[in-house]
């Protein structure tokens, strides 16, 4: 009994630390995000600032206010960055793993080479790629080594955008995207014969799609159009991020490929499947769980990305802004703590939306086992 008390006492400091530093601080941050801290410059840096409750005003301003157009750009940047970074890391990682799985000579060497950027910090990676992507820098000069004319793309300093859309249409696009995803869920439920899931996903998908196609187009967040798109300055950042993280996905996929029982592949071969068909119908479906966990990890990294962009483009460059950068800029350079706190809460919600369903499903699996 005494030992049990000792055990609890040993754990207690950690529990207290986590309770304060995680839960307490999240609570405090939430409270700050509902106040006007930073609105009055005289109060911003006061030792005991006077805070007034303003409700969701900070959040409203971020999404629809006139001054925070840069936040909206940063959200759009984050969406595109996350998509292309995940696609790039997963794609390259899978290709590398498939190549190494065929047992080339010097496999250990290749593995070491593909994985070493993981050991670097994003700051080092960012510094290196910042130099490579200078307008007069390494990548643009590369073709001249083969007697070709140099590239002239300004990479990180370009202000060009593609896939431009009106921020006002965000509710419409969101409803459309969620509706179509739910439609896909319904289709899967139909195939698996789960009637209840089929009904509910079909129902909510229908509501969303009908709303999007009728009222959605005319719901406006702002009284004027505001255009945002995929900033091409992010291409360089994505390149650097993929360089750093694709070794990680390679390691995951390689472990997965090595884990597929030989008998399964033999059986497929005996059944007369071509190599392409084996990949399409046997190997890739078996790798799906790995893809999912890799997506969670990469998505989690992408949503918080800060140091890479800080090192590559700096804080003040709007075309490569993301919410984590804008949060830092607002709170620690502009002393607008309340709005910074609001962005922190939004990031927490985003990450939670990605991580909690995943953790819940993992937990369920473990219980079943």
């Amino acid at each position, binding site marked *: 009994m*005494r*030992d049990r008390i*000792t*055990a*609890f006492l*040993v*754990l207690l400091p*950690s529990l207290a630390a*986590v309770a304060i*530093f*995680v839960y307490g*601080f*999240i609570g405090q*941050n939430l409270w*700050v995000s509902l106040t006007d801290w930073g609105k009055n410059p005289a109060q911003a840096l006061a030792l005991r600032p006077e805070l007034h409750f303003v409700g969701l005003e900070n959040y409203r301003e971020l999404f629809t206010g006139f001054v925070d157009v840069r936040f909206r750009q940063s959200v759009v940047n984050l969406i595109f960055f996350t998509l292309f970074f995940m696609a790039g890391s997963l794609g*390259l990682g899978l*290709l*590398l793993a498939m*190549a*190494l799985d065929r047992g*080339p000579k010097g496999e250990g060497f*290749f593995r070491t080479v*593909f*994985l*070493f950027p*993981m*050991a*670097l*910090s*994003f*700051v*080092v990676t960012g*510094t*290196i790629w*910042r*130099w*490579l992507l200078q307008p*007069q*820098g*390494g990548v643009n*000069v590369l073709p001249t080594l083969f007697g070709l004319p140099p590239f002239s793309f300004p990479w990180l300093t370009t202000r060009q955008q593609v896939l431009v859309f009106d921020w006002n249409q965000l509710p419409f696009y969101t409803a459309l995207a969620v509706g179509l995803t739910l439609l896909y869920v319904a289709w899967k439920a139909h195939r698996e014969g789960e009637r209840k899931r089929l009904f509910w996903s079909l129902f909510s998908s229908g509501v969303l799609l009908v709303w999007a196609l009728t009222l959605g187009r005319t719901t406006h967040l702002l009284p004027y159009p505001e255009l945002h798109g995929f900033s091409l300055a992010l291409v360089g950042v994505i390149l650097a991020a993929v360089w750093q993280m694709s070794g990680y996905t390679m*390691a*995951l996929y390689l472990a997965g490929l090595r884990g597929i029982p030989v008998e399964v592949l033999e059986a497929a071969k005996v059944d007369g499947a071509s190599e392409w068909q084996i990949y399409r119908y046997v190997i890739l479906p078996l790798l799906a769980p790995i893809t999912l966990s890799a997506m969670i*990890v990469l998505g*989690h990294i992408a949503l*918080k990305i800060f*140091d890479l962009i*800080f*090192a590559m483009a700096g804080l003040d460059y709007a075309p490569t802004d993301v*919410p984590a950068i804008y949060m*830092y800029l607002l*709170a*620690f350079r502009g002393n607008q703590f309340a709005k*910074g706190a609001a*962005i*922190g*809460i939004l*990031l*927490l919600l985003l990450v939670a939306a990605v991580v909690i369903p995943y*953790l819940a499903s993992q937990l369920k699996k473990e219980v079943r086992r």
Partner: protein
Amino acid sequence: MGRFFLYAFLLLATLFFLLPVYLVILTALKEPAKITLDTVWHWPDPLYWESFNIAWNAFRPKFQNSVVLALSATMLSALIGALNGYVLAKWPFRGSNLLFALMLFGMFIPYQSILIPLFQFVKAIGLYGTLWGLILVHVVYGIPIVTLIFKNYYSEIPDELVEAARIDGAGFFGIFRHVILPLSAPAFVVVAIWQFTQIWNEFLFAVTLTRPESQPITVALAQLAGGEAVKWNLPMAGAILAALPTLLVYIFLGRYFLRGLLAGSVKG
């Protein structure tokens, strides 16, 4: 034919991963005046070692900060993790699993969501701008992952061993000291590598909570490279310095590094 494409692809991928390294090394070894447009990729002749000298002198205090920070925070969190993992794996009490789950949540939060209260807190207790503040923060936010790694490891140790020691009259700490600790080396290695790499490479806390005299090397490097009109030989030499410790860990302890990576892959 298939083999040809396989090796061509691998060669191309190797170039993608290694060319940046080649450029970093040769830029660091080039005389600043010779870093020009048309010779970016040319190997320097003669080699110019002065940049390393200058970078080392400029970075030495920050490098030392990083060493002190990473080593002390790693040791502290390994110790805490071992004790926590021991309690959770071998002395579970009612609700301990729930508490563990609540603890793990701390791994996944984006630190932006606690940064402002943390900044206020560190300021209030007088540790803002010191290395101690940063050590404290890294130890605290490391608790979930180190506890997870040790708990998983200790769960594999048979309960009978603990039971036998208890019948022999050993208490809580006696069992830890004589039964658990001697078996713990692999877990300590994984945790040490994971925490050292993470803390050495960390940037957000470092840039928010330090003053110039307590900056670790990542912050110093980002500020050097981010300045206007930089001479690129210096940031490149600095990048090599900043990368070296974790690269050495990767090269010499690669197997454990990968294990830590996969153990921490739930964290990301």
